[in-house]
């Protein structure tokens, strides 16, 4: 993996973390819900901080599923085929996200941390968070090297560890950015900022998916 693609991986993680819909807003909402009364500010802060790892775990799972899927497929199918198929899926999914007027449906605000992780997994999955990383997953050096020199089993192993690496780096970036925003909004800024600063990331997100698909196809 080159330094450039590592940087891109971190930037995408930060981009996912920035999106209020991906979880920091839920963490802040849970904190505010606890904030009333004596010592409420501290209790609320604890709730915010507890919520963030659960959200990150759900996000990592959504990324990891795609990473493992790509890695395992690449160990048995030619890398170029996987890349082309992945690119086509990405462009199609991105177009659907761009044109569809359907919204993610979820009813429920009182969630356990496990349920919150589940929510985050679904939210990330339906928005194609993992798919956005397909260009990285189809261009992993380790997997390619393994495929050529070590046979199928070693290739799968290398691809898997590379997939875990991609998931880890991406999720860490997502977690840091989401966490920083959640704390700043909870402690300092307040939620009125949403009215002016909540840009329609869904559309940028859809365009990013299409872009990722095109890159995957171009480099296949």
């Amino acid at each position, binding site marked *: 993996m080159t330094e450039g693609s590592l940087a891109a991986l971190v930037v995408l993680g930060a981009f996912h973390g920035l999106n209020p819909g991906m979880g920091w807003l*839920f963490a802040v909402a849970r904190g505010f819900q606890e904030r*009333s009364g004596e010592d409420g500010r501290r209790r609320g802060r604890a709730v915010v901080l507890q919520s963030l790892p659960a959200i990150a775990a759900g996000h990592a799972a959504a990324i990891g599923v795609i990473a493992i899927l790509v890695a395992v497929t690449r160990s048995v199918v030619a890398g170029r085929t996987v890349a082309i198929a992945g690119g086509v899926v990405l462009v199609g999914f991105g177009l659907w996200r761009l044109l569809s*007027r359907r*919204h993610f449906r*979820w009813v*429920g*605000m009182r969630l356990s941390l496990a349920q919150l992780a589940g929510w985050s997994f679904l939210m990330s999955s339906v928005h194609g968070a993992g798919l956005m990383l397909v260009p990285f997953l189809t261009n992993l050096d380790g997997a390619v090297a393994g495929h050529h020199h070590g046979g199928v089993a070693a290739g799968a192993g290398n691809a898997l560890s590379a997939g875990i690496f991609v998931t880890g780096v991406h999720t860490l970036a997502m977690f840091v950015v989401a966490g920083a925003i959640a704390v700043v909004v909870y402690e300092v800024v307040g939620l*009125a900022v949403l*009215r002016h600063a909540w840009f329609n990331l869904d559309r940028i997100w859809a365009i990013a998916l299409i872009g990722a698909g095109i890159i995957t196809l171009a480099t296949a």
Partner: protein
Amino acid sequence: MPRWKPDPTFYPSPRDAIAGPPEKLAYVAAFDRAAQTPDAIAVLDVDPGSGSYGQVVGWTSLPHTGDELHHFGWNACSSALCPSAPHPHAERRYLIVPGLRSSRIHVLDTRPDAAAPQVVKVIEAEELAAKAGYSRPHTVHCGPGGIYVTALGGADGAEGPGGIALLDHTSFEVLDRWEADRGPQYLAYDAWWHIAHDVLVSSEWGTPSMIEDGVVAELLLGRKYGHALHFWDLRGRKHLQTVDLGDEHQMALELRPAHDPTKKYGFAGVVVSVEDLSASVWLWHEEDGRWTATKVISIPAEPADPAALPPVIQPFGAVPPLVTDIDLSVDDQWLYVSCWGTGELRRYDVSDPFHPVAAGSVRIGGIVNRTPHPAAPDLPLAGGPQMVEVSRDGKRVYVTNSLYGAWDDQFYPDGVGAWMAKLDSGTEFTFDQRFFPHGDAFRGLRPHQTRLQGGDASSDSYCYP
């Protein structure tokens, strides 16, 4: 086309909503009791700086006759900012307008001209029946996972159970019957929620045959109208608990939960007690993990000469207050209570919800009093303050005078008329003398619910305190 930034009329918290700009237009449902001309959404100018202030400046007729418009609501509101499934770039743009008698649901687009909404979709009664199993759609709330529409009757001529139909946020198609497990619930009327606690509350009026030809005295004295509140798991769509107010408390109608999402209490209005004709307001709240309700306001009947009374209440020699609507200000500090029988609108300070303090009252209309509006002191008025709507900032209160076609005719048999009034609510609580659309302003139709441009005290729910 979705927006790049959130709809400016979506507010994260009640506090933010209160700080928003005042409304400039009001939408009022108006219906023709004779079902000869189409019902309409009247658009009123409520901008005090405008030359046409207090006048009807827009009029959108519906495609059919005999719908009997009643309540209605916005397609999207501040609940769109909730973190669990946010869609902040949707638009508060469409009015969802049910016909209580026809069971049709109309969708009106308030763009591009907010003063001239266009009918863009009509959901026929058959679709509501086939997909949700309901008829007589009533309350509309923009909420999590769709638009919630309560309905009083069952489908295909069935009396009940009444319940909630869920509509798609964007296509407005009927998705399904909301309830997964309705438990013992059968009667329906209003519904709203504690959105941050995943709790839905519903109330009870009666089935179609109990209401459509007027109040049925035998059923009322037999205590057959609704008298319970139902608490539901909003997420699992399951009935959790029935709170019976006591069967003497007939018709538990409007539900006004606290807007503060950290609070778990709300107010419910009861039309009449069959024991003494009084009306009451109840506070629902949690006690040791169970829901309970406490009567916090009781309004007595007013003795009257039977000769001055319509036949339906003549034997009692008194005018029942008939609390038919209540509304809670967005800051949860003020509760407005309509006494449609006695012709009084009361204001209570409910900053301590368990102990409301009377904080002002005005008289207008009434079965016996016929109090005129100060802007037209020689004009006796029929009907009384009925649907009451409070502006987001809490400074303006709008009331209309019609209850429900057949019931208007029973309690005001010489004609209920048509009027709307506005009160300024601050340290004083008084009529705005410049705002009194009445009579021909409503073109022979009767005004019912008011919705304010950009939202009002009974349309939005908030996920952040």
